């Protein structure tokens, strides 16, 4: 057998999975949202499902909420993750327990984390009970809404608890691999602590922070469980809105729901690209992926 053929034969199993289930699934979804939806007898090319998304106030509210929450959670997680990594760097060099410790929040599933967080910040949760014990509030209703709230506080907090340790772990791994010779050299050359951080440590850590926060943003933008548990039904994050409409008893809503999911996938691609361009412009990072 010739060499090229053997190579592509070995590559074909994962490519088949991606081709049939991912690309094929996307293509079928696109077709259904473009007017080829058999269950309701739709069988002609039309953009009307996309047009009606554009005229739907709920969609704008949902899109805005998704962008806001995903950005807030990503930025805070990135800053907190970087701070954690820098603070733990010395300790992690001496003991490997730190890595194990950071693995724990990472391995708590989102649904469980959302449930545990709810026990603390819900109107009748531990925080509210503490506030009652100190006489700040008289009843659960007096406590500010932190779950199922307008601002999505619970959703953002839940993601920070999971994603900051993730970004910290990725950054720690990169810093450990690089060692501290560059910082030692800067110190020998007389750089101050701030100069060493700004011009040596930060650029060294940047690829890990950028690539892991990019994964975090893309994940949160399309995520479902946390907003489903801790968010409001209206306006909901994009995936929740799409799921509500997809599973509605009225099948006529389904092509619109699929159109929404397609838009969300396209937006993720565009935003990912924009993020890469932005980081390249800001910190001159050519290849943030540690692959």
């Amino acid at each position, binding site marked *: 057998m010739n060499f090229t053929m053997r190579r592509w034969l070995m590559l074909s199993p994962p490519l088949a999975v991606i081709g049939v289930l991912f690309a094929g699934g996307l293509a079928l979804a696109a077709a259904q949202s473009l007017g080829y939806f058999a269950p309701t007898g739709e069988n002609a090319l039309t953009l009307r499902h996309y047009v009606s998304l554009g005229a739907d106030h709920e969609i704008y509210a949902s899109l805005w909420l998704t962008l806001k929450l995903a950005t807030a959670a990503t930025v805070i997680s990135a800053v907190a993750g970087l701070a954690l990594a820098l603070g733990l760097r010395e300790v992690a060099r001496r003991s490997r327990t730190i890595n194990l410790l950071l*693995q724990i929040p990472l391995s708590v599933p989102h649904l469980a984390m959302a449930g545990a967080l709810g026990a603390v910040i819900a109107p009748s949760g531990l925080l509210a009970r503490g506030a009652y014990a100190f006489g700040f509030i008289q009843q659960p209703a007096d406590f500010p809404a932190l779950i199922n709230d307008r601002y999505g506080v619970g959703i953002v907090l839940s993601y920070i608890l999971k994603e900051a340790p993730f970004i910290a772990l990725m950054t720690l791994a990169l810093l450990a691999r690089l060692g501290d010779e560059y910082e030692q050299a800067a110190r020998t050359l007389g750089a101050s602590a701030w100069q060493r951080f700004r011009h040596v440590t930060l650029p060294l850590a940047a690829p890990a922070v950028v690539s892991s926060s990019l994964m975090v943003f893309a994940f949160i933008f399309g995520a479902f469980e946390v907003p489903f548990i801790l968010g409001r039904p209206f306006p909901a994050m994009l995936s929740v809105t799409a*799921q509500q409409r997809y599973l509605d008893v009225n099948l006529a809503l389904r092509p619109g729901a699929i159109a929404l999911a397609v838009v969300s996938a396209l937006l993720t691609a565009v935003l990912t690209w924009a993020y890469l361009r932005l980081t390249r412009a800001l910190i001159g990072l050519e290849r943030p992926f540690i692959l």
Partner: protein
Amino acid sequence: MKKPTLIKVAEALAVIAAIGLAATPLALLTVRSLAQSWYWPRLAPPAWSLRAWRYVFSPTAEVLPSLATSLSVALVVTLLAVIVALPASRVLAWEEFRGKRAVLFALLLPVLTPPLAATMGVHSLFLRYGLSDTWVGVALSHLIATVPYATLMLTGSFSRLDPDYEAQARTLGAKTIDVWRSVTFPAIAPGLAVAASFAFLISWSQYLTTLLIGGARIVTLPLTLVAFQRGGDEAIAAALSLVFLAPTAAVAFSVARFLKESR
């Protein structure tokens, strides 16, 4: 050199934060699963009970079957993902060829884009071929998320191994199977363990994909958990959360230990 106090304080805070992030959710869920009539405004549970745990493991409740479904799906998906990923990741790590960047890009796409749109398309495909609402359909749908991850992670482990070792073993007269068993496999075993555990965890924690493809007919543990979270039985929801995270924590720990030993 002596460290400034400010840095010492910052390091201590970081350690406290790491311990808090790890311990708080686990402690909270444990207390909640054992608490009885823990109503407003009590700060501590007035009484303890094993009711939630008895329910979770009772043979008549729906928890054990959903646990079995979750386990069987995740184990089969892990096995399939690794088998599918192994030969390809070897090629991707060791060979330069035209189209390699395109293949890597194709592998990254499902990792980076939200799975919902593709899942909806797959759902319509499975509806047509009788795979929706079935165990097989759910397992197949979990491959979308697991195969790219497993392939990319295994590519990483192969690329840290010098392909010349295999060539040397072969020059010394080793058969293909022996080369694999005594050279390649031991070298990539840690990476294989990590990739397999990731695949397991991804499949184990799928919610929306299982809900759509399984049509609430194939009930995995996360589906049962959400039912109790939304149904309002906090103790059972907490106990289920702990059952749900037990394998993920176990896998994370054993991988970490394994990596440490193989260093």
